[in-house]
């Protein structure tokens, strides 16, 4: 058995077929995929559909708590879930660098299969290309997904109203801090792990019980909580008031942020969501979120205070306040 990816593996010939049969189909068990047709033929979807795509280029490709494989599945599942859709199926495409270790590809496929299992869906179609060494960095992954929006679900920032409660599903910045610590060679000593996880069960739990009360959802990935809140405020035309004290940040995440001078509000999350919901049902929704493993840390962090100029005001832990702005450029460690 070969140990490394060669250009042949992406040629569409026998080497490609061998790779799919010996490796991909070993872990990805969908009968649709196993048919190896030009396109996946899936059953009909009733009502409105959600369709989303995302590409994953994270470096390092393996990190505490997951890999690029987990991110690729959870990222697209979460994008679907945040529009209220129940994910139905995913596509999966790889761009591999010549020389990439097959053992690493296998480990990533195992993560993909496991993440699909957790989310409860299948990969139904895929593609693999190989580029010459140096033309890509190890492995790039793209996933696209289709989801079905159940009858009666209507989630949109335009539904955000004065008085709404703003919740997050758990502690923030774990993923961003984990990747940052890995890149900078800080020894995280097993205290830091990525938060990557699927949010569809969490979304389903609240939408099944309180479909009308949920006005908007967003997973604060790149740009972090700050950027996601700012975007929601901007598109709703409302003002958000957030309590710094109420935002859960785990101590090791804080330590990485203090060491590098980076604000945790701007670090990526890969398994957290913001829920904006009617105030009267906020505690019900919080408990529903907590009833699901991925929402066990759910808490209210602020409220929508009206239709003044759209902005996000953070009341700081020390009693001050400041305006939250969207991220401009990737957060970089500072010495100043």
């Amino acid at each position, binding site marked *: 058995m070969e140990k490394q990816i060669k250009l042949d593996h992406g040629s569409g010939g026998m080497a490609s077929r061998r790779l799919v049969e010996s490796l991909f189909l070993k872990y990805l068990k969908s009968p649709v995929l196993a048919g190896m047709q030009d396109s996946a033929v899936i059953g009909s979807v009733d009502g409105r559909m959600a369709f989303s795509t995302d590409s994953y280029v994270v470096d390092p490709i393996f990190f505490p708590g997951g890999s690029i494989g987990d991110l690729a599945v959870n990222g697209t599942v979460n994008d679907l879930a945040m529009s209220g859709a129940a994910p139905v199926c995913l596509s999966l495409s790889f761009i591999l660098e010549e020389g990439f270790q097959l053992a690493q590809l296998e480990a990533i496929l195992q993560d993909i299969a496991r993440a699909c299992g957790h989310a409860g869906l299948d990969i139904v179609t895929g593609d693999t290309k190989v580029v010459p060494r140096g033309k890509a960095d190890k492995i790039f992954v793209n996933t696209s997904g289709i989801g079905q929006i159940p009858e009666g679900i209507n989630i949109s920032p335009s539904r955000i109203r004065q008085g709404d409660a703003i919740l997050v599903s758990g502690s923030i910045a774990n993923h961003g801090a984990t990747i940052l610590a890995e890149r900078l060679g800080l020894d995280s000593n097993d205290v830091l792990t990525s938060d990557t996880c699927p949010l569809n069960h969490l979304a389903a739990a609240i939408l099944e019980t309180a479909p009308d009360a949920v006005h908007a959802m967003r997973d604060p990935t790149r740009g972090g909580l700050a950027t996601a809140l700012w975007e929601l405020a901007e598109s709703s035309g409302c003002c958000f008031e957030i309590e710094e004290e109420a935002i859960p940040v785990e*101590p090791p995440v804080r330590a990485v942020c203090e060491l*590098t001078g980076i*604000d945790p509000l701007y670090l990526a999350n890969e398994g957290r969501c913001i829920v904006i919901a009617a105030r009267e049902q906020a505690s019900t929704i919080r408990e529903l979120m907590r009833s699901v493993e991925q929402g066990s840390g759910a808490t209210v962090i602020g409220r929508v205070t009206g239709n003044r100029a759209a902005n996000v005001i953070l009341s*700081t832990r020390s*009693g*001050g306040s*400041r305006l939250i702005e969207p991220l401009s450029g990737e957060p*970089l460690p500072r010495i100043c």
Partner: protein
Amino acid sequence: MKYVDEFRNPRLVRAIACRLENAALNPVAIMEVCGTHTMSIFRHGLRELIPRQISLVSGPGCPVCVTPAGLIDACAEIAAVPGVIIASFGDMIRVPGAGTSLENARAAGADVRMVLSAVSALDIARQNPDRQVVFISVGFETTTPGTAAAVMQAHAENISNFSIVPCNRTMPAPLRLLMEEPGSAIQGLLCPGHVSVITGSSAFEFLPSEYGIACAIAGFEPADIMQGILSIVEQVENGNPHVENCYGRAVNPGGNPRARALAEEVFRPCDAWWRGLGLIKESGLALRRRYRSFDALQRFGIEPAPGNEPPGCLCGKILRGAATPVECPLFEKKCVPSSPVGPCMVSAEGTCAAWYRYGIGHNRIHQTDD
């Protein structure tokens, strides 16, 4: 986090703010000279807690913001030399020179890596013996000794593929310049806590004795900063300017002589350009003869363009509190956050960047027009 959280206690911060409210009877203009203070004041939203009669002016204490544009362009020029690896603190990577930035150089194919320490840059040199590794050495008194230690180590180990672009600056000279300028409105100075760890509190004694400036050395947590401001206001109100050390857990009067000795072993004072302030005597550092072979500018034969500031830039006055951004002809025209001209726009929390972002100037203009 121990020694951090205690000093963020909202009860303490509010109590000091309350004292400050009572103490500040008259308008007081205070410069927070250190960029990390500026960042902390912003992050913790402390401006909201400071009485209106106290105006805070951000000084020239962000090492990347005061690095002259010509020197940044020179760094980018070195980055473009085939085979070179640039190692830089993260702060420096996006800062624009006159023509380009390290970020642009990286986009054009240069190998620009982010490090947390000069020591990491030296490690990169050891791991890549066939490539030249150039560390962009920015920083004030706090940062320079570590860089000096790395240069001494490179010298001792004969690491010939390591060099630095010396952009280091020292604090007292520009402070003197700011205070001597006619029209300076500054009455108090929030002294940089971590520079003071190295220099000692005595380095700032000339400010009260020669210029009557009230000084407080402060740490960087909200209660530290509020206490420093309170000390300055009390000194001004009592007519008793001196240097008060409010950061005793880190700073002692004599500073850290060991760190200073390391810096002095490797560097000698030289005249240097500051973005927005011009050429300041004895405010920069050059490598001493023994270590001169580690100077990347010499190694690559690159002469930075002199730090001529574009005509019209008022950063020098704004830094002294003698002008506001809207008085500058470049503000919001040629000088915007995406292509900044002077240091007050380069720093995300600089006075001009903040005015641009929050439209402070416009509010004022409308108020006066009415």
